[in-house]
């Protein structure tokens, strides 16, 4: 057992001997996170990680306009408006998964709200079994009750002091008060702060993408240690001692895991503190996704280490997941913007599950349960890769 630790420690010592590579592994992702974050921030639409929600208004009351404004300001949903679409079209798009939900504002809705009547309700089309629905629903409730609250407050104020504060004005004031709730006063509207949080939205996608992307670079470095060990026949020599093969596999696995997890931890803390990507919102979820993703990618590294015939082949084997898995898995561009089919294919890639896990936390504002499925998928892949790697080790070096 203790030999597992000995082997892991030896691997890490070897990794740190190559100090430049080691620093590269930790610093490059930080640099790239910045570059990609700003690049995608610049492209606009691409960086929008909010849930797409169709919006069709059949009402033209000023209260309805306020409702629209509230929706447009949402951090969670992004309105897709197209006056040429019928409710049936919207329904179709929701069914296809192109939209997370669709909202139809019926004629007379604004007036009813103002009168404090509840005869008319917003019509919402959604797949209520989807995870996205949970967050859309919460946001809908928040916004409508805020509108409702503002109307009531304004009515009361008007009743008390209609001379000095006409309803209209009171309504606007109350809505604004919601914009600046007392607890958020420190984060006011200074342009500097606003800019950081703008890029923050873009980075909510890019930062996790970079974490997974560079994990694969870390994996390569670690895999090369194993390839070199096989090529110099130190692995064979290990097998002439009484060290068991499974200990050799676990030792290397542990080393890669520790490297990747350190990489993750640095990038997560960096993302949280500097880039304001909110990983710490649900810390236990972030830890679970990070551990699962690190285990999965480490197992892939182990497999490459035991399967590649040469260092060159190890690079090729690592570039394939780096580009295919990352590209496919949405580490570069969010899968949401690529359409339903690609979204489904993308989930063949473990990176997609890693992205899902992180984005559910930092971009979609979901809770701990939302990362359970992605984590389970990642752990499944980890088990698969690890088994293949061990099988390779037992098969390749004859007993």
């Amino acid at each position, binding site marked *: 057992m203790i030999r597992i630790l*000995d082997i892991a420690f030896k691997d890490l010592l070897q990794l740190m001997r190559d100090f430049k590579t080691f620093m590269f592994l930790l610093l490059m992702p930080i640099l790239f996170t910045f570059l990609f974050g700003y690049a995608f921030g610049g492209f606009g639409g691409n960086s929008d990680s909010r849930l797409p929600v169709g919006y069709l208004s059949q009402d033209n009351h000023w209260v309805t306009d306020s409702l629209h404004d509230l929706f447009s300001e949402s951090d969670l949903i992004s309105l897709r408006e197209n006056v040429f679409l019928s409710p049936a079209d919207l329904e179709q798009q929701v069914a296809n998964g192109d939209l997370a939900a669709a909202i139809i504002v019926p004629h007379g809705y604004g007036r009813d709200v103002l009168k404090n009547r509840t005869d008319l309700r917003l019509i919402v089309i959604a797949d209520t079994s989807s995870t996205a629905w949970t967050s859309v629903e919460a946001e809908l409730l928040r916004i409508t009750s805020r509108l409702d609250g503002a109307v009531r407050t304004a009515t009361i104020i008007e009743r008390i002091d209609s001379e000095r504060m006409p309803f209209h004005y009171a309504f606007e004031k109350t809505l604004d008060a919601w914009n600046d709730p007392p607890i958020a006063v420190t984060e006011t509207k200074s342009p500097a702060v606003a800019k950081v949080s703008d890029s923050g939205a873009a980075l909510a996608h890019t930062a996790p993408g970079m974490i997974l992307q560079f994990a694969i670079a870390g994996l390569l470095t670690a895999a090369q240690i194993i390839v070199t060990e096989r090529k110099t026949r130190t692995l064979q020599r290990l097998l002439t*001692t009484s060290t068991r093969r499974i200990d050799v596999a676990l030792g290397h696995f542990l080393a890669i895991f520790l490297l990747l997890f350190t990489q993750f931890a640095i990038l997560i803390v960096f993302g949280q503190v500097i880039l304001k990507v909110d990983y710490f919102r649900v810390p236990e979820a972030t830890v679970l996704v990070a551990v699962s993703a690190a285990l999965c990618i480490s197992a892939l590294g182990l497999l490459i280490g035991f399967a590649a015939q040469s260092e060159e082949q190890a690079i090729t084997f690592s570039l394939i997941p780096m580009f295919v898995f990352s590209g496919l898995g949405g580490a570069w561009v969010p899968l949401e913007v690529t359409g339903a089919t690609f979204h489904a294919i993308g989930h063949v890639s473990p990176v997609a599950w890693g992205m899902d896990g992180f984005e559910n936390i930092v971009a979609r504002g979901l809770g701990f349960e939302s990362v359970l499925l992605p984590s389970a998928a990642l752990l499944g892949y980890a088990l698969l890769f690890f088994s293949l790697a061990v099988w390779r080790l037992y098969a390749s070096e004859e007993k």
Partner: protein
Amino acid sequence: MENLPAIEVLSLHKAFGENRAVQGVSFEVGQGEIFSLLGPNGAGKTTTISMLSCLLRPDDGDARIMGHSIRSDGNGVKSALGVVPQDIALYEDLTARENLSFWGKMYGLRGSALKKRVDEVLDIIGLRERANERVGKYSGGMKRRVNIGVALLHKPKVIYMDEPTVGIDPQSRRNILDSVVALKDQGMTVLYTTHYMEEAQELSDQIGIMDHGQMIANGTHDELVKLVGGQTRIDLTVNAEPQRILGAWQSVEGVEQASVEDEKISLLVADSNLVLPHLFEAATRQSMRITSVDIREPNLEAVFLHLTGRALRD
């Protein structure tokens, strides 16, 4: 336990597809002896050693190392054994001390016992002063010494050394040969492979000659040399057409065989001291000069030539 052979090899076979690398090799090495496997490239020496260290499973046959079967008691074999592989199997980006310390742990040593043993081994291989340099920066000879040191860490009863002197300077080579003898003096059994017959001759109690996967001869140096009938070979060149002197030399008493290859005349003789003066006389009579003389006492090279019709170093 006392009389048990350290290594007992019983008709090992191993084929790689069509290539029958080892075909029925058997031999025995007594405790505290040095046994050399001598053979040209591809003879099957490394394949044999790999089977004896449980890295390769034999197709047929068995072997016992200190009584442990390589087929059924791999762990017993491994704990009795230190292996010096033909390739330098070390971590080049770690220092000699770090390497020894890591391998010591793999052999099950820990703590202060490990530290002490690493220092001892560094002394044995003469690298104490440079122990904290990375192995990658060492010369070939120094790497070879660390490669051997690793196999000594757990004080094995039996040690295999697969061509440990390939490609190194004479000084390192001397150091290694001396340390092999020192190991024997401490009671270790050594299985040594080489294609240098001088090394086999100098070190070994017993020598096995391998070719094409077979053990073609096996015995002490003297026993093997007797196989060629104790003949000495004399190679000569002259400053004229070799054929002109060949007949005269063939009829000199004591010359048993004569042949010409290129410009060189080769004679097999019973005793070179008796024959040589007559060769010079014959040359003088034909007013020729002998331009070079090379006397080869019977040796393993000759044995190999005799048994296979080929030189050992092709």
